[in-house]
């Protein structure tokens, strides 16, 4: 029963976001601030993770390809597809669920507990629209961009590790990258990243916005929001893969 209560309230929160803004300029300002926070703020961690993901997948693929009948270009092909299909959208978004999700939940939770949300309500501001919508919109704009950057850096990391450890030559890696490339895979990855961006911002927003109590509860709801976001993200990953990649 508790699940339905939360789910119903979550849907009501989402519905409540869509009203006419009191001042478009202020909403735009908040949206830009969130773009910087979410997009630029996460660029460092996304870059580091992506390079290492690519590097590790190149080395591990080469370790598993023991047959001399399989050309070395296959390593690049596998790195490319795993990075595009799974590692960049899913792994990066799981990390972002921790980084951005906990920040959103604790920021909104702190605003709720210290009555800042009430203060905005009293002023006549729709707090769901002003505080939550710019976060979700900014994430849906910046996270797919981060995922694209992650794909590039992941493949580059694989190439770097492959060449540096002598597993594959740069030419062979580049040839492999162009072999059997399916552009739809990028579209699929972007669909996933839009969905994940929505999940990893709306769920922490819900937990932060409706927090009750004090500092302890803010911490708890922040942790819970990250856990729930990750589970929902993995569930959505499975559903999307099933829907969009099976014939």
């Amino acid at each position, binding site marked *: 029963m508790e699940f339905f209560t939360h789910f119903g309230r979550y849907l009501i929160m989402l519905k409540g976001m869509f009203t006419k803004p*009191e*001042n478009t*300029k*202020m909403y735009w300002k908040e949206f830009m601030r969130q773009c910087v926070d979410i997009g630029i703020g996460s660029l460092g961690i996304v870059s580091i993770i992506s390079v290492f993901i690519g590097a590790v997948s190149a080395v591990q693929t080469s370790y598993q390809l023991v047959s001399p009948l399989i050309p070395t270009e296959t390593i690049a092909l596998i790195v490319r597809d795993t990075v595009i299909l799974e590692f960049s959208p899913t792994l990066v978004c799981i990390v972002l669920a921790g980084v951005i999700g906990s920040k959103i939940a604790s920021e909104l939770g*702190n605003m709720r507990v*210290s*009555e*800042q949300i*009430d*203060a905005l*309500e*009293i*002023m*006549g*501001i*729709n707090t769901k629209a002003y505080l939550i919508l710019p976060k979700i919109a900014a994430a849906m704009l910046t996270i797919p961009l981060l995922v694209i950057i992650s794909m590039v850096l992941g493949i580059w990391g694989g190439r770097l590790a492959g060449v540096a450890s002598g597993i594959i030559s740069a030419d062979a890696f580049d040839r492999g990258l162009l072999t059997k490339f399916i552009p739809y895979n990028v579209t699929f990855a972007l669909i996933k990243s839009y969905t994940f961006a929505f999940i990893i911002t709306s769920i922490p927003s819900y937990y932060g916005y409706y927090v009750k109590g004090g500092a302890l509860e803010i911490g708890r709801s922040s942790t819970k929001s990250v856990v729930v976001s990750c589970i929902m993200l993995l569930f959505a990953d499975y559903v999307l893969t099933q829907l969009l990649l099976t014939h």
Partner: protein
Amino acid sequence: MIEFINIGKQFGENKVLTDVSHVMQTGQCNLIIGTSGSGKTVLQKCLVGLFEPDRGEIFYDGLSFTEMNNQSRKELRQQIGMLFQGSALFDSLTVEQNVMFPLEMFSKMTIGERKIRVNEVLARVNLVDANNKFPSELSGGMKKRVGIARAIVLNPKYLFCDEPNSGLDPQTSLVIDKLIYDITKEFNITTVINTHDMNSVMEIGENILYMYQGKKEWTGNNEEIIFSKNERLNEFIFASKFLQDAKDMRMLEAKGIIADDRDMDEILKNGDKLTN
């Protein structure tokens, strides 16, 4: 003027407010007092629309707040200022940005005009040279003053203050009380204050509503409270021996038994002679 009639509110099985009715007068400091858990915060939150009452009606200058649609409520709320118990300042904004926020959101002023208005209200609450400070750099009293400045920057018709003196020393409390009182008179605002600070009750209590277990127990002003025979009210207001003595002195003054312009030094000197 804010009038509320038969306000009722319960959370689950817990009845917090039972048929509370009262009129908050324009240009006066209207106090809601009561022990912790008596329902005064819930009543104030119902009045500003943060909680929906289960029963009853609220009127702002004759307009029914309870029957208003969301848009009308939003418009009315732009005429409401509120000072929160913890000040509720936006942590990431400076003092100037905090006070300017309602102006940016709702006024069509230019940035220059906004800055002038912000400096005006900051000067009104005696806060100068604090424009670029963050809330974390301010003392409790300064935070309250910034909260008041933000609440009055749009020239509200109604000002709500939730425990304005909580966490402040007695001297700063008096300063805040005087500031609220002066602003109420200067701009002819309907001010509603939630408090259990006895100094506030005695200093600025022009229209007092005493709540007990979610019900209206007594109403009056700071003069009438001295002579009230209501036992619960007396237990609450004059809880300590010191305050009981102060009440007795006030009553003796009022009945002319001792002069209100008495010379305490003289009395004490005579007292010394008596004991000798």
